[in-house]
């Protein structure tokens, strides 16, 4: 499934880098408001689902090669967050749904967990 499919099916509002959505294939996702845990446990290439809105969201996804971010609970990222994401080519999508429901819908569509509790070399 592409990020474009996900954004449309969840009535997402795209904040930046819309042209990239159809080229991003989403197989796994990681949902957290703790960037510390994202840095510790998220596998490469996974979609990030979060309700945090600050600029460190973009820094975290830069470090981890996360292709895009879904913001849940209607949270709107700060201007500096959107600006850095746009400059970095990272699409941001706004959703009105809560994290639990968002994860449930994506799971039902075949998106799996990207939890990595083991070896960082894997």
């Amino acid at each position, binding site marked *: 499934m592409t990020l474009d499919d996900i954004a449309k099916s969840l009535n997402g509002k795209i904040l930046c880098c819309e042209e990239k959505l159809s080229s991003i294939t989403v197989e796994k996702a990681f949902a957290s*408001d*703790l*960037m*510390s*845990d*994202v*840095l*510790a446990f998220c596998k*490469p290439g996974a979609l990030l689902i*979060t309700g*945090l809105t*600050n*600029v*460190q*969201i973009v*820094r*975290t996804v*830069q*470090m*981890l*090669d996360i292709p895009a971010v879904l913001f849940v609970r209607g949270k709107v990222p700060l201007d*500096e967050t959107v600006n850095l994401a746009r400059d970095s080519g990272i699409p941001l999508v706004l959703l009105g749904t809560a994290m639990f429901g968002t994860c449930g819908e994506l799971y039902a569509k075949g998106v799996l967990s990207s939890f990595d509790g083991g070896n*960082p*070399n894997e």
Partner: protein
Amino acid sequence: MSDGEEKNKIRIEHSIAAGDYLKAGGASNDIKETLKMIGIPPNITRRAAIIAYEAEMNLVIHGGGGNIAANIDDKQIEIVTTDHGPGIPDVALALQEGYTTANDNARSMGFGAGMGLPNIKRNSDVFNIDSEVGKGTTLKAAIDITK
């Protein structure tokens, strides 16, 4: 910041300001982009980026600012941070997952879960902290790139 190159050695160095969450991560992104540019494999680049970013955030949150450097040669990538902050009274305790002394501001940014130092160690092949209360902390974390 200073970038230097000499006989397959690259050094990237940045000064990091305390509490500047807006700029925090910029130095680590510079390190990561350099590693990508010189052809370091993605998995190693990712590990180095995580080490650099966690260490940079520690300077912002705990160290009162400081300095981050990446020393890259044919054998390893070494990330070194130095600060003159309060120091770590009990390094073994600080290395336990879940232990944190982060303030509310850091927590509101999504940090302070007590995963930073353990995550740096987990991604390193060589890891060392030299800390003295009242004087500061030096962290060295290296990845062997010959494996």
